């Protein structure tokens, strides 16, 4: 349906998974803040785009959510990684590192290396 957001969505999804992996259970705002802190400008404009991604991940069964109370006692929806999510994260991390390594090697390669 929304083809054009697919690539950033994929990246965003991986960031969400990693965030939940590191920080455990967290609400939407917390995830947004965390990604913002680490990635700088990437999410500065539209924090809201996070929510459709969260829903997609939940429907895929890699994260789960439930209502809970936030630090200053607001009702908030907390997201956490499922067992399947952890496996998925592992796989995708490997994939990502492999891809990054290959790309890295290509960028590092000089003309004489290729001949």
């Amino acid at each position: 349906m929304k083809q054009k957001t697919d690539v950033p969505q994929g990246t965003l999804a991986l960031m969400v998974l990693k965030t939940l992996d590191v920080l455990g259970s967290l609400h939407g705002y917390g995830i947004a803040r965390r990604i913002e802190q680490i990635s700088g400008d990437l999410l500065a404009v539209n924090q809201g785009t996070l929510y459709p991604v969260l829903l997609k991940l939940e429907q895929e069964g890699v994260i789960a959510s439930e209502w809970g109370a936030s630090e200053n006692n607001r009702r908030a929806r907390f997201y956490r990684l499922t067992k399947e999510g952890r496996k998925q994260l592992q796989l995708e991390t490997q994939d990502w590192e492999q891809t990054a390594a290959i790309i890295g090697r290509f960028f590092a390669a000089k003309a004489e290396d290729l001949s």
Partner: protein
Amino acid sequence: MKFMRRFFARLTNSATQRARDERISEEIENHIAMQTDENLRAGLPAIEARRQAILKFGGREAIKEDYRSERGLLFFDNLARDLRFAFRMLRKSPGFTAVAVITLAMAIGANAVVFGVLNALILHPLHVPQAESLYGIQHGNEASSYQSYPDYLDLRERNRSFDDIAAYDAAQVGLDAGEDPSRVWIFLASGNYFDVLRLQPLLGRFFHASDEHGPNSAPYIVLSYSYWHTHFQDDRGVVGRVVQVNKYPYTILGVAPPGFNGTLVFFNPGFFVPLVDQEQVEGVNDLNSRGKRFIFMTLGHLKPGVTKAQAIADLNSIGSYLEKTYPQDDDQRTFTLARPSLYGDYLGKPARAFMTGLMLLSALILLAACANLGSLFGARAADRSREVALRLALGASRARILRQLFTEALLLSLMGGALGLWGGFVLMGGLSAWRPFSRWPAQLRVHPDANVYVVALLLTLASGFLFGAFPVRQVLRTNPYEIIKASSRGIVGGRITIRDLAIVVQIAICALLVTSSIVAVRGLLRALHSDLGFEPRHVILADTDLSMGGYSGQRALQMQKRMIDAVAAIPGVASVGFIDWAPLVSGGNVDSLVFTDATADLRRSNAAAESYLFGVSPDYFQAAHTVFLSGRTFTWQDDENAPRVAVINQEFARRVFGSAANALGAYFKMPDGTRLAVVGIVENGKYASLTEDPSPAMFLPFLQSPSTQTYLAVRSDRDPAQLAAAIRGTMRSLDAGLPVYMGPWNKELETALFGSRMAAITLGVMGVIGAMLSITGIFGMAAYSVSKRLRELGIRMALGAQRKQVLQAALGRALKLLGIGSAAGLLLGILASRVLSAIVYQATPRDPVVLAGVVVAMLLLGLVATWIPARRALAIDPAILMRED
């Protein structure tokens, strides 16, 4: 896996949409609240803190929409929404909905029924394995397939193209299975019949070629499933039972599988008897006569790899061998192959042509229905142009709006299709159960299979898309700005459009059909009260073939005399006589050439006339109320020792003797040279069909012209059912094993009336469909013109136009088309009645009832079609209309 899980999650989400909408709203609220808190802590003023938080979050509605599309399946969500909307729109205009659904139901139902019959009759006629390689052997020079038994054996043994060849003939026998002996139509089938057809029995076993050992050597019968079901109540114990066939003991071997009703679609035999028993079944043994072509048809499966052309060449080489070897019996033996189910090309060709024509016609009907509904639909879309414009202005895509319109069209077509299919089922059920001739096992089993469903569904969807497509251009051209600003509505032009022409043609065809069907019905009614040369009311016909009881010669004559005496003794019987072929009932009338007494050379070309020939008992004329113009009836003394005599009708007298006055006491000659003296002259009558021209007929005393075929005509004022029971009892006391068929004579005329009745029904049905089409056509056009000119009509009313003038402005054009179409149709109908008179008795349009009927019908039709648009035009309130625009 993951994809599937998501798909189902989304599907269920689509269903529980409202509750979940709240979750995202709350999450967004919380998110913004937390960001606001954060901004406050960073020192921003309260209002600015919230504003920044909202800005940072992004377009809330867009994200919700994204969220929604992520969560549910947008397609299904929209579909559900479109469906709800479509339902609401249709409920708001029940008139339009009803007209559209009924029109579609009739058009689609007609197509389903016609296709169902086509399917049953031509596409999948026989329920036998590998029917595609099964062929009947037909003569090369004519569309028939009669063979003699020796020729059949030669074809079977000498061919190299068929796996094997079977043969069968249809015959009628008397069956006595313990109670109530009855006449049954059967197939005399060669021993290999079932093996050639590759069938397996439902119960017991079939007979095989190995059971045949010369004439009358195989006293076995195999029941058809439906006969077993109706006459033996599914009794599995029938296998092995011995029954009497024409008084000979026969053993029931087994029951054929359900769905198999012999190898002719239109003729369903009750059971099957080996062909070698022909003598016991038909009373003659033709198994050794090469000249007696009594076998109705031969058929078989082509060997794998043999083409039709190769097989025909093979058969023709056998044919030329037969011509050379048996020149006195076999001349011109060429062959061709045809599908066996409709008796080769004899019925197959006309049936295929007829059904193809009917299919085309019903497709045209559907097309016309779609065109009419399309213009109706267009009118509605025009009414809604402001709504469409508004939605476009608010950002709906054109595709989205078209989808809404198509949803509405498809919903209508599905409703119509479902109703049509249901009606079609009822009709096909009736058709399957229908036995048009009580004396013939003719029955067409139309059981809709998957093909019929698929075709009906495809037609339904296609017609939905077709008429849904009408407003597409309108929507695509819609310019929201222009419409909302000016509500510009075109003036309906004064030119004659193609649409006008199409409507006139439809109305003309409708009027033609209405005219023809009224003519047909009138003719039918007249036929029932016409002068038949006998009076069928208050007469019960009891017919029997004495050969089925084992009578022949003198014994048969004595039995016939005893029957008359016994039945005449029943209280309340006014008179009783018998005839060997009852006029207008039996169908198989005998005729003979006759010659003037002076003719010496009795060649066909010298014949004075060809005349129907009946053998009657002396009291027949009295029982039938056939009026004598002069002379006398026969006496019991007119027997084989007395001089040969005849009673003739007026037409016979006119043709052979010039006048009735010359005829009485004169002589004429039969083809064998016998001289007959005319002793009486009776009125003309109808003998074979109601529409025949006056034909010569002669009646001979049965003692001089014996026949085992006996139709007792019993005249009485008693209640027919009681009388029939009394006659049955009397006949049983004479011979309990003799099958007798009984019915009132006027009911027995159904065979003769079949043609006119079918014509009346078909024309009536087509007339109703035509009327429906005309109604939608006029309705669509009138509705369109009213909605296009709403503003103009409003202004006229505001300026003081009268109701009559408004109606004239709104509907004048539609009514003018109706008038032109009706007049043209009536004219065509009057011309067409000439054609109709070949089928329907005395079809004439020069009949005030016909003219008045057509005019009233067309007026009614116009009234129905313009009722809703007229009410709408009259209900215009100029004040509201002006304010709106």
